[in-house]
């Protein structure tokens, strides 16, 4: 299964990025093999609509689940429209997040957990 984790860096030791739309990187991981690829997020400094565009980037990778810190309503709407499962309030390193996910300890978000533009000044 392929999942996407927002990350502050390019490795699995990096911290989970608390922002979805303006995350520094998206790490796409195969949960069985732990093989991963890194996508640098071009929407970090977007004027607006970062959440939506980032959601499209993640959707296009074929990931089925998204692990992040905070996710606003526009990104959430986009991800759920494409059938992706969203997990918010995830912290720690990317590896820890994946382990947590695999152990079934994460609960799926029922909606956005922050307002639009939450990650603008972070």
């Amino acid at each position, binding site marked *: 299964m392929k999942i996407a984790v927002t990350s502050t860096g390019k490795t699995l030791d990096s911290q989970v990025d608390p922002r979805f739309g303006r995350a520094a990187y998206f790490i796409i991981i195969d949960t069985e093999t732990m093989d991963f690829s890194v996508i640098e997020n071009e929407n970090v400094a977007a004027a607006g609509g970062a959440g*939506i565009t980032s959601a499209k980037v993640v959707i296009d990778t074929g990931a089925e689940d998204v692990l992040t810190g905070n996710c606003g309503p526009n990104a959430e709407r986009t991800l759920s429209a494409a059938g992706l499962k969203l997990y918010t309030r995830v912290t720690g390193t990317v590896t820890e997040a994946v382990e947590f996910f695999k152990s079934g300890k994460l609960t799926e978000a029922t909606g956005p957990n922050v307002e639009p533009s939450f990650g603008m000044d972070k």
Partner: protein
Amino acid sequence: MSNQASVWTNDMLDNFVIAVASGKGGTGKTTIATNLAHYVARLGQKVQYLDCDVEEPNGHIFLKPDIEETQSVTIGVPEVDTQKCDGCGKCGQLCQYSAIICLKDIVMTFDQLCHSCGGCMLVCPTGAIKPKPLNIGDIEFGKAGDIDFVQGKLRVGYVRTPALIKEVKKHIKQDCLAIVDVPPGTSCPVVEAVKGADFALLVTEPTPFGLNDLKLAVELLREMNLPFAVVVNRYDIGNDEVEKYCKAENIDICVKLPDDRRIAEAYSTGRIIIDVLGEYKQQFSRVYEYLQSIKAKFDEKKRLRVRQKNNP
């Protein structure tokens, strides 16, 4: 020559649009704009006040108008006919605001992010996208005594500020002095609000923050070729850098208002300063006379141009 000058200064300030702007927020734009409107109305002259600070219009707190009419303002946002859409994704690739996005077989739209450029409708090869109206705010019309009152009110959560300001400004009257209360800053809403004005008053305060933002506002107005003068509010706080700057840049300071606690008290209870503190009529009279002299210069230039045209 002096006779002519006095004739001009007796001229009514009609057919004249002034924008009250600032750069920095909280310097006293609305205080200056509403008090000037009151002062001019008391002279028996027709005056119109237009609140273009549509994200948070507050002139009404001081002018207390009776609102007689409300118009809703709509813009066109895309609506997708899913039967016609073949999911090519061209609309989403074009949109710079992510207001429309194509995911495999679904197209999603985000009305609040749309800037109504119509690009998605143009690039759609199957004609699946049509505009639908979206209400972005209201324009209210009323009377505050003899002052004609107009204000724009943007809907909370909507970002189409310039579009609403543009609509508000369509209601500028010709036969009076029109005072446009401009939002703070130097971004798109400010450009839209000052556009087409005859003259601008830049209200500032003599602090490093006031000066920094004043410089930005001056840069903007010069770029737009809009003549302006400065009003220094709370002139006895901070330092003299604003005055030095104006002198060096050859910018008129048309009036200065002191940092008077009683002004702050009147403001905090939504009152007009010249109502409560009569002595400040003098300052607004100075602004009025200054604007008259400016208009006289404009009119003279116009006359000269006409004369040159007729007698080449």
